[in-house]
């Protein structure tokens, strides 16, 4: 699993832009409330980026991706 990060830009007028990185699908929505609590702030806008539609693939045990045709 890729490292999950959040980038936060704080401007000199106090406004904040946050961006989730490597957090896929619906899970990233949880971070709106997390950031509001962390920053004592209100989210006024949010938008999905291209990774929202990416799928997280979990490979367990000896299973793997078979590339043989």
């Amino acid at each position, binding site marked *: 699993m890729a490292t999950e990060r959040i980038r*936060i830009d704080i401007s000199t007028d106090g406004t904040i832009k946050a961006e989730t990185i490597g957090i896929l699908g619906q899970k990233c929505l949880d971070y709106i409330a997390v950031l509001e609590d962390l920053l004592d702030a209100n989210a006024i806008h949010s938008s999905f980026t291209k*990774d929202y539609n990416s799928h997280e693939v979990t490979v367990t045990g000896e299973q793997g991706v078979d590339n043989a045709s």
Partner: protein
Amino acid sequence: MSLEIILIPMAIALITAANAKAKSNVGVASPNQVAVETRMKNQPLLEKAMSKISCSPISDENVITGNYNSVVFTFKRNVEGIWAASFVAGTSLEVATEIISKIDKAYGLEVQAEVLRKIKERAPQSGMSLESETLNEDLSVTLLLTVEH
């Protein structure tokens, strides 16, 4: 990247600085006074901002009095909890707006510092660790947090 979020700290009213209005004779006792609405909501941060530009704030319950280059003004909270300024009679709208703009700019920097402080203090409790902190050319600050599992 999966989600971009714009947030406004609670210390800032949900209007932009550009929308802050300067009006004559609105909500002030004397018809000759000038009132200036602001976006500022946090009293300690407002007092710090005023001090930073040498406005010598004097607080008395819900009123903060300031003085900038001998121009005297007072801040009072409006019904929405936002600080609004009124200037003594004879102050031009231009001077009043200029002073409030200077305070607003200093206030923004105080809010920025406060947000930084909170992130550093609270991130571990929220399951995150600070990976990097960058001061940008425009004096904005970029933080990279790693989500711990």
